[in-house]
Every structure is written in C-alpha cells, then in structure tokens.
C-alpha cells in the first residue's frame, strides 16, 4: 500500500456496467444470425450400450429437419486425454451420452425429430464406482484403457507431468512420528457450479475446412486451440468469445457443444446454434471429479508432518480431458499446504459410467484437500493441536520447495501468509471460541455451535502464457488487444485500469477489443487465479512498450531524452518542465503505435486463502446452519475493491462451501441416472439464508508485478468445505467424513437414525 495510484485500488465502475443493468449485454443466445438452424442432441437412456442400429428416416422426413447425424455420418474426430473418445461413437458410456444430432428450422422441430429416431441398443453392464471399476472383470469403458485406468500425465504439462508425490523416506518418517492417523476419506458428492447461462455454441462452417465459433467460455482463445486438435488438426478455427454468464471453470470443457454445432453447420451449410437445456447442463455436461483418498499421515507433537503415504483415487466419469492436469496441480497444491520431507502419494484416474468430470472451480486441489484435511484433523486431535497453529506452521514459506505440475522442483519466493492467517483468526475470534477437538464452541438446548478452518493455495497465479498489444492513437486514446471474455470477475475492466495507470489516461479513453481469436494475440485465458498476475502482466508490458515507443518518437520534438519525459492524459511533457509539452497527436494522423507484451510462466509464487466458519447444528433435526464466514488472504495490492469482494463472497456458491452443506449431484448408482438435474431439486443458497461474511485482505507488495498484485479468485471456494466438515464434527462431538453434511448424515453420526458412516481413525 506504499504507492498512490490514480486507478489501481480505487472503486471504479465496470466498463460494461450500463449494458449489464439494462439487459444490453450480449451473451451467446442473444446474438442474431441470419438463416440460423437449431441443433438438438439425442441422448442415451442407458449407462453403457452398443448402438446396434439407428433408423433416422422418420426424423429426416419431418418438415423443417435439415439433417440428422449419427456416428456413421461424421469424421473421425476424437477428444479426451488420451485422445480416444470419438465425438459421436457407436458406444454410449453414460446416461445422457450423445447418440445423434439434429438440425432443424426451430428448436421445437429439432426436439420432435429426436423423438422420431429409432435406436436399437445392445445393453452392457455398467460400473459406477471407481474402486469397482478397477477390479478384474469390471465392465470396460475403452479397449484402449484396460482396467478403466486413464493413462496418467498430460502432454500439456510436458513429459514429466506430475503424477504422484514421492520424496524422502516414508518409513523413516513414520518412525519419527508421535502419532499416525489413517483411513479413507472422500469428496464424492460431485457438486456442480451450474452457471446460470447454459453451455452453448453457434458454428458457421465455410468450405472446405474453416469454422467460426461463437462461444460462451472464460477462455475463448483456448477453444480455438482445443477444437483445432479435436478436429484432427485439419480445420482452421476462429472463436468469438461473448459475454459469459458464468463458467467457474466448467465451460473450458465446451468441446462437445462446440463440436455438435460444427458438425451440424458442416452438414447443412448454414449457421447452427446448440444450447443445452438445464437438464443437459446438469446431467450431461461437466462435474467435479470424484475424490477418494486412502492414506496414512505421521505427525509430531509440535505439528511437524513426518510422513504421508497413500493413494488418491479420482473418478473422472466416462472420459477424461483435464483430469490428468487436475491431478498434477492437486499434487502440487497438497505440498503447498503441508511441509513434509517424506512422501509416497500415488494417484489413479478411473473411468466410470457417469457424466464426465473435469475442470470445475478449483483444479484438483479442492478435491484432494477435502479428502486429506479430515485425515490431518484426526492426527491433530490425538495431540490436541489447534488447527490454526498447524496451518500457520505448515503452509509454504519463502525458501521452501515443491514439485509443481510439470514435475520440476520450484523454490517459493512469494508472501509468507502466516500474518494473514493470524489477522483472520483475530477477526474471527478463533482463540476465544476454540474449545478443542470435537467440542462445541457453544451449546443452547438441542443446538450446538462449532467452528472450523480450512486453507488452500495454488501456485497457478503465474501459470501459462499471455500476450497483449496496446495501440496508441493520435487522438489520445488507447486500445488493448487481449482475447478475454467477461465471465464475471470484472477483469476486462481491470486490465483497462492497469493500462490506464501505465499510460495515465482517463478510463474513458481506454478500451478493449472483442474476444475474437482472429484479431487478438495468444491468450491462455483466466484459468485458476492467473488473471491479475499473468494476463495483467502481459497487458501492462504492452502498455509500457507502447509508452516507451511514443516517448522515443516525440523526444526530438521536445529536445529531450525519452527518459526525461512523462505522459498524462494524452500529453507528453518534460519532467520538471511541463511547459515543454506536446499532444499524442504529434505522432501524426497517419500513424498508430503498437506495444507488445508477453507473460511467460512462473511457478514460484502462490496465493493463499484461509477460511474460518461457524456453524450451528440442530441435534434434533440434524440441520446445519452456516452462521459466519471469515475469509483471509493477502493479494499484494487490491486492483478493484468491489470486484475483489464479489470474488471472495463467491466462496459460498458454485460448488464451494455449500458443497459441504447441501449442494450435491444425486447420482443413482443402480441406474446411472442423475436424479436432481433441475434447479428445484439441485439445492442452492437463497437470499434468505445468507451467513455474515467478513473478508480480511492484506496487501504485502509482490515485487515482481508492476502493481505488486496477485490473483485469488479461484481459491475463494476451496478452503470452505473442509472447514465446514471440521466445524460440524466439533459441534456434535463426532467425526463426520462425508460431504455434504446433510441432516441424515448428522443424525446418523449421532446414532439417531440407523446406518454407518465411512470408517476412518487415528492410531
């Protein structure tokens, strides 16, 4: 907070604010196309089957139907990691898998035509549990992946992509331990962020081999690259990223809907729109990976972790695309929160006959830690260790190292978050309320209160590459070329704040290009929390480059050296002698200046979010109420206060904290059907149930960013679920091991209804 900025750190209105509040923002389904056809997907009612025959003749004869496509009609395009999933296949692998595609003049006709397609299936046995799927004799989803185990690693992270955490001597570590805890814990309720806007795409095919896609995604440039690979590297792809009505990571997995629109446009020669219904969105799009961990942890009385061994089992559903990458990042993240010299943590990614898992807010770490922290808690209980002391001691410190996603070892050079954790604990009143493990913080009749804490961080704030250009115009305006869609974080506006700060231009005089992959340079997109540090640094570098160029250009006119010059509000002057000045227009009406900026990956920095929660449990009904949340973090420098608050308050929804309270995808393991694929049966938090939230934000300058800032958006949701599990366990005096903490589970743990919760324990 040492530097005074004109825009950075100030509350400024979002550039798109007027459009948002007047309904003028254009999301995918709001764009008009001439001659548009509507596409629909016929989906499998069976979890595992071979399509024996498809008769599409009746559907084709329906007036208004332009084409019906089945696996027999499409090119050999493949998706997945490894690339083994045909975009339309003869085999279906989950209830909701694609069987046929229809394009018609209206959505209703397309829907009706789907009902006229006759399909004969040969049913196959299905498997719905990851451990069952690994057993000999289990139904096999892919011939290429025996045992239903996905090939580990992803080429995206290089040949040594992290697949496990192995270092030191685990046996020695366990010998040094004062206490060992072990057990199996899971985070398997496959919660769904369910952004309001459904997945969708519009495709316009141009013969012989080009397609333009209008997409709803947080990372629209990446779609261009992903789809190029799905299309066998034989199709040139241009993407138009529109305003995105929420993604939370999920829409990065938009290749199916983009493929369907492309196939239908290719077959009809007309623009085709495919937008999933809410039922398709919930039951046939992307879920969180199922996470189960069987592990053993050794700990000393002072909270030093001496050894971690075990296996992390990840259920990816019917295919994997990003799951290997999520396992790599998860394996890195677990090291960030647990300083330990001896590790033997193995992983398996397993296929099952349900809708696929993939990229969902948080990228592996939330899944892993929601399984891992309960195990740590049971060790802490044995030595009566306060969890806040544990996380302060064990979260990565400058000089510590970790294996990151590419398998390389990195030495951490970021912020020491102990101070932020301490400040958050004070704000929450942790010390006053903490009564020890499995003890309520307060009791009133049948009501018990409990507190819990969780921590999460990711060294993703500097991951992957970004490029940007900044163009200076003679009229004293600037244009940022950055392939960024607005998906809710306000970052399109924030990059303009950064550019305006560098150029000292009023915000009204800076603007940004549409997220069109044809006109913009490479942009990986706002994955994780990389927006501020990685994408922002590219925009800043481009603005600095442009500034340098214009100063060099006009320096002779002012009889000065470029380094003696300043520019403010489109006027360049000699520092200390502002009478010697010239407007940007001096560059000439026939010239623009283009600055270029690039960011290259840097894995030596991490963010950190610590979340404290207080719950009240009704021990008669089993209902859990979340009363209070304190999030604490350090962002280096706040860019936009209201935007940051929105991101931090986001800790509740989009499969964050609420995934430990009531959010779950209810999957019927006898039929393979998802039972709550609508917004009535899928539970979500309403205005009437808001807990109090306090956000404690520190600003310890991060030297390597021009404005000393790092991002925290992704991690806001991650520490909460494990904190809730801890708080509810403390409130009722019995360990809960499963998410979410529904009344049924609470009453089971209290022995008030029959049934057993999963085993786990400390020795």
């Amino acid at each position, binding site marked *: 907070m040492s530097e005074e900025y004109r825009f950075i750190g100030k509350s400024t209105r*979002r550039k798109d604010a007027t459009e948002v509040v007047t*309904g003028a923002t254009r999301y995918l389904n709001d764009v008009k196309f001439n001659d548009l056809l509507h596409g629909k997907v016929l989906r499998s009612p069976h979890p595992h089957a071979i399509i024996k025959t498809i008769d599409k003749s009746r559907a084709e004869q329906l007036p208004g139907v332009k084409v019906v496509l089945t696996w027999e009609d499409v090119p050999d395009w493949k998706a997945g990691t490894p690339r083994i999933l045909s975009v339309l296949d003869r085999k279906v692998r989950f209830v909701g898998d694609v069987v046929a595609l229809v394009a018609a003049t209206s959505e209703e006709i397309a829907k009706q035509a789907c009902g006229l397609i006759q399909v004969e299936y040969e049913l196959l046995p299905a498997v719905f549990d990851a451990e069952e799927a690994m057993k000999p004799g289990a139904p096999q989803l892919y011939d290429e992946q025996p045992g239903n185990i996905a090939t580990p690693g992803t080429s995206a992270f290089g040949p040594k992509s992290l697949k496990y955490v192995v270092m030191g001597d685990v046996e020695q570590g366990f010998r040094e331990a004062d206490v060992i805890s072990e057990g199996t814990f899971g985070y398997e309720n496959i919660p769904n962020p369910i*952004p*309001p806007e459904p997945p969708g795409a519009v495709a316009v095919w141009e013969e012989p081999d080009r397609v333009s896609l209008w997409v709803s995604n947080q990372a629209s440039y990446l779609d261009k690259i992903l789809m190029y690979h799905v299309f066998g590297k034989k199709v040139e792809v241009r993407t138009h990223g529109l305003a995105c009505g929420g993604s939370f990571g999920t829409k990065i997995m938009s290749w199916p809907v983009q493929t369907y629109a492309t196939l239908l446009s290719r077959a009809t020669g007309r623009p085709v729109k495919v937008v999933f219904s809410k039922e398709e969105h919930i039951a046939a799009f992307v879920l969180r990976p199922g996470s189960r961990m069987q592990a053993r942890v050794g700990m000393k009385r002072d909270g030093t972790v001496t050894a971690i061994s075990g296996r992390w089992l990840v259920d990816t559903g019917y295919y994997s695309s990003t799951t290997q990458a999520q396992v790599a990042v998860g394996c890195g993240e677990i090291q960030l929160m647990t300083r330990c010299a001896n590790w033997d943590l193995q992983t398996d990614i397993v296929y099952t006959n349900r809708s696929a898992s993939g990229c969902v807010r948080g990228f592996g770490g939330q899944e892993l830690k929601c399984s891992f922290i309960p195990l740590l808690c049971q060790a802490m209980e044995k030595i009566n260790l306060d969890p806040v002391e544990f996380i302060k001691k064990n979260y990565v410190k400058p000089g510590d190292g970790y294996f990151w996603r590419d398998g390389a070892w990195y030495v951490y050079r970021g912020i020491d978050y102990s101070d932020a954790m301490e400040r958050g604990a004070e704000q929450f009143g942790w010390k006053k309320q903490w009564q020890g493990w499995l003890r309520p913080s307060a009791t009133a009749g049948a009501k018990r209160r409990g507190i819990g804490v969780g921590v999460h961080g990711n060294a993703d704030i500097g991951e992957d590459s970004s490029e940007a250009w900044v163009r200076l115009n003679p009229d004293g305006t600037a244009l940022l070329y950055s392939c960024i869609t607005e998906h809710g974080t306000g970052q399109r506006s924030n990059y303009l704040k950064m550019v305006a700060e560098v150029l000292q231009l009023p915000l009204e005089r800076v603007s940004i290009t549409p997220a069109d992959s044809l006109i913009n340079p490479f942009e990986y997109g706002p994955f994780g929390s990389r927006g501020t540090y990685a994408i922002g640094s590219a925009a800043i570098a481009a603005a600095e480059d442009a500034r340098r160029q214009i100063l060099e250009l006009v320096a002779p006119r002012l009889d000065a050296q470029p380094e003696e010059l300043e520019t403010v509000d489109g006027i360049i002057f000699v520092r200390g002698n502002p009478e010697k000045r010239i407007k940007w227009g001096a560059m000439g009406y026939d010239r623009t200046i283009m600055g270029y900026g690039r960011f290259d990956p840097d894995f030596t920095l991490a963010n950190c979010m610590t979340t404290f929660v207080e719950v009240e449990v009704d021990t008669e009904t089993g209902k859990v109420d979340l009363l209070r949340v304190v999030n604490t973090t350090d962002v280096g420098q706040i860019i936009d206060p209201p935007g940051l608050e929105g991101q931090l308050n986001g800790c509740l929804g989009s499969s964050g904290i609420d995934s430990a309270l009531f959010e779950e995808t209810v999957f019927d393991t006898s039929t393979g059907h998802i039972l709550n694929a609508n917004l009535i049966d899928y539970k979500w938090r309403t205005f009437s149930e808001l807990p109090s939230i306090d956000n404690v934000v520190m600003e310890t300058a991060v030297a390597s960013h021009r404005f000393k800032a790092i991002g925290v958006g992704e991690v806001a949701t991650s520490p909460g679920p494990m904190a809730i599990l801890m708080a509810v366990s403390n409130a009722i005096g019995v360990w809960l091991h499963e998410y979410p903490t529904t009344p049924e589970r609470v009453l089971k743990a209290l022995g008030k209804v029959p049934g057993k919760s999963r085993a786990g324990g400390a020795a």
Partner: protein
Amino acid sequence: MAIQKKKVTANSGRISLLVNGKPVEFEIGSLPHQVDTSHTLAHTLRETLGMTGTKVTCDNGACGSCTVLIDGKAILSCMTLTVECQEGSITTIEGLRNADSGELDPLQQSFIDHTAFQCGFCTPGMILSAKALLNENPSPAEEDVKEALSGNFCRCISHYQVLRAVMAVAGRGGGHV
C-alpha cells in the same frame, strides 16, 4: 408473484400487449410471425420481439432469471404463456430506464454504483424482482428485500452487494449485510 387474472382470449385470434409502454399486437397461430398458444412470454419477448434482456436460466420456474413485470408485479416469464397476458402491461429490463430522458432507473444506477453483479446473467431478473418489491413497498426492511429476492438464483454470490444496492434505493442506507 400471482398473475392478475385477465380474460384469456386465445380464441379471439389476436393478443394485445403493452410492452414497455408500446402497444404490440400479434395474431395467434403457428406461423413464424404469430404467437403460438404454447409460447411463453419469455419466448415471445426474446424470439418474436428480439428483446433479449430477459434471460432464461432454468426454464422451469425455479431461478427468477426470466422475471419481468406485468402491471407492476413480478412474474416468471418462462412459466407464463403469452396468451395469458392479454391487455397486460409488461415491463422488461429494456423498459426500465426513462424513455424520454434515457436516465437509468434508480435501481439500475444503484446496481452500477454498488457493483451488484458479477457475470450479470441474473441481473435483469434481480433488478425487476427488486423493482416489484419497491412498487409495493417503497421502504422495505432488509429482511423484506431478502424475501422478495429469495427466488432469484445467483451463482457468483453477488447477494451481499445486491442487498446494499436495493437498500440504498429503499432509502435505508444499506446497513451491514
């Protein structure tokens, strides 16, 4: 959210509405320019009239995204048939600003001032639900606002900033939420 009972006149062959103050009349039928008896108000607004400010999220009456006003009261346009709205005066998000001056409605301005949105997809429905509340009760307590907005789904969690925005207009200054 009760719909004011109007005489349904599907058989009359025409349907007349006032949309954001402008009279609109359709023939009832299944041709592209006509309004089908199965068309929801959301469909008519978005597809027939091209007013895409009204958003459809769940298409199932659960999420409030498609909220519009009919005679000043909030309704779910995805659950309302257009033919049920005969002679109704409909206000959508596009019609909230002052038609003459172009000035934003105080609620719209307050949503901007409080950054009471993130992805913005639920925002039109939020604003119109809040507008319906203020039409009925210009000085609601915070609990009234929570109740009125409890049918509006937001996944980014802009609830806290929305409450402040609405309470600021309600003249209560927006206490701690």
